[in-house]
């Protein structure tokens, strides 16, 4: 990898798709990123599951965050470079691909970069706090 590669890759959330993606899927994701002020870098051609594409996109993104779209199965995944491939931040299966969810996925990709709280489906504020206890396992 030459230095030129680093210089050429703009800081952006990378989006990888196996085949060209219809506007109805890609546009809401880009709106979510745009509202959060985050640039995107779309690449088409690699093959694999949404999770694998997302992981590859995250690994290749200078911001460590990637989105993978597998049109054949109609699934979309959000990934971070530090996460193992089988554990994406979000995985939307085909029946979940509505505008709201796709836009939220785009916004969360940006928030993941910015270190800001993610937007949750239910609206976290309305829930009882103890139902959201996270038990971290395996600390160093």
């Amino acid at each position, binding site marked *: 990898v030459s230095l030129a590669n680093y210089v050429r890759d703009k800081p952006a959330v990378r989006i990888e798709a196996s085949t060209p993606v219809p506007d109805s899927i890609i546009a809401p994701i880009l709106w979510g990123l745009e509202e959060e002020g985050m640039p995107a870098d779309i690449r088409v051609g690699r093959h694999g599951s949404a999770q694998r594409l997302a992981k590859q996109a995250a690994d290749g993104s200078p911001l460590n965050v990637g989105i993978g779209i597998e049109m054949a199965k109609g699934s979309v995944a959000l990934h971070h470079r530090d996460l193992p491939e089988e554990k994406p931040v979000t995985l939307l299966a085909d029946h979940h691909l509505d505008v709201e969810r796709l836009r939220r996925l785009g916004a969360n990709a940006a928030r*993941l970069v910015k270190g800001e709280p993610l937007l949750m489906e239910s609206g976290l504020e309305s829930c009882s706090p103890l139902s959201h206890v996270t038990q971290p396992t395996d600390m160093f």
Partner: protein
Amino acid sequence: MAYIAGVDVGNSSTEVAIGELDREGPVRFVADALVKTIGIKGTVRNAIGIMSALDLALLSAGSTRQDLAMVLLNEATPVIGDVAMETITETVITESAMIGHNPSTPGGLGLGLGITIGLKELSAAPADKPYIVIIPREVDFQEAAEDLNRARSNNFDVRGAIVQKDDGVLIHNRLGHPIPIVDEVEHIERIPLQMPAAVEVAAAGMSIDKLSNPYDIATIFCLDPEATARVVPVARALTGARSAVVIKTPHGDVRERRIPAGTMTLIGQNRKETVRVDEGAEAIMAKVARVTPLKEVKAEHGTNVGGMFEKVRKVMAELTDQPVSAIHVQDILAVNTLKPQKVLGGLAGECSMGVAVGLAAMVETRKLPMQRLARALEDQIRIPVAVAGVEAEMAVRGALTTPGTASPMAVLDLGGGSTDASLMDDAGEIRSVHLAGAGDMVTLMIDTELGLENRQLAESVKRHPLAKVESLFHLRHENGSVQFFREPLDPEVFGRVVVVTGRGLVPAQTREPLAKIVAVRRQAKQEVFVQNAIRALQAVAPAGNIRLVDFLVMVGGSALDFEIPRMISDALMKYGVVTGRANVRGVAGPRNAVATGLVLSHASTRKYQSIGASCELG
């Protein structure tokens, strides 16, 4: 061989100590236990908690109730505390409505002035006026941007927009001509139409400049001096916001409401003082000190403080099954605090921080019916039950088993409902005092000041340190240290301030930054516990002089707190008192003092020797 159980029923926890008494030799403690108190202290329902605590302790000693020769209950002090928070200042707003909030991503920049109008009504409106356009949820951002661009080309003068969805940046990016846009306004339908309005958006990292200054608001809306004074709460509520809207509404649209804070009369043994609540906590506490010992408090009817005392008395009367007239306020603790108040005229639930006084009251009730509880317990477990020993005395006896202590020693019991102090002098004489205000008050202050409206979460914030989740794999604790995790953290806590509890990470559901939450928590603990520690020691110390106390041990649940003992130690350092957390019997920490004292006291009356504490070395 016989097992004797000491039982201490407190406001929040029930503790048991089990000691073995031989015919000769010292008491040998074999087990202890702690459970949550069931029912109000002194009522028959306590028996359920006592039995489970006994069984728990006996189980860990490898025995059963059959080995138990006797159960000793403490003569609990008949005091119960309650807390309330009352506002001194009632926020009033007239003739303006406002929106002020921090959407993560508003659109555009700067200040826009115009008349409020719905997006769809714009084309039919006269084109000679400046407008602030309102865009409801139903309108897609692309459609909104197209409409605004078309209006612009038709010579409409649009100066700003108010948007219901999180679309501010998206709309702004599609406009040929930039305007400030405030988005994520939940109750957009409440915005009055055809009214003069100002929209302001600050750059990232900045906060609004004009709408947080009353004179700039006066300049924008041509307000007279009287009206300017009335927009001060609006300006204050908007201070620090990234974006804001102020709308001038016709006279009388938003009504003014004032409830006086009221006065209270403190009746002491020898003196009487009247104090106005809006003079603040210091003034109230100065007068409390002047009338000490306090015998009763009378508060003005129809005022905030009157309502508060009525509530406290009513609750106490119900709990203790006595007439309201029999409830006397024996001590109060007043603290200054801030209380977020819904701003009248706010369209997005805005709050301004009103000055408030938190009051904890302690009422003396008739002697608690401990004998009745003892009989009920005896019927259940078929073991002799006796009420033995005064709580304060038992606490000192138990606390004296802490290695390194000697009389004259003071015991500071930091509980949930009250802060108690007792002192045993060289002659073995014991003086004690019960003061209003303890852990529950700290919880209330945290809950109120952070606007959590969730007592359980406030309790959690009080008990545990905070951290900020900085990535999927690490968080930064409030002391700056970083902790990494092998497994990714839940995306739900990503980027959030969390409470680090023993059970895991709990999101602190507030938008306040970590430093603010820490400051509020520490301030509440300082105000309540440090102030009460000094008040209590002055009340029991020889000649009221804290310097004459050699040793002070802290017991009770709040002595286990991760920062309260340190705060009290710091405050008492200048008096030269050896201050620390008790370690009852060298093993139990600040817990179990009264239960231990009961067993020791029983042993000494039977001419048994009591043991010293166990030390780990030497």
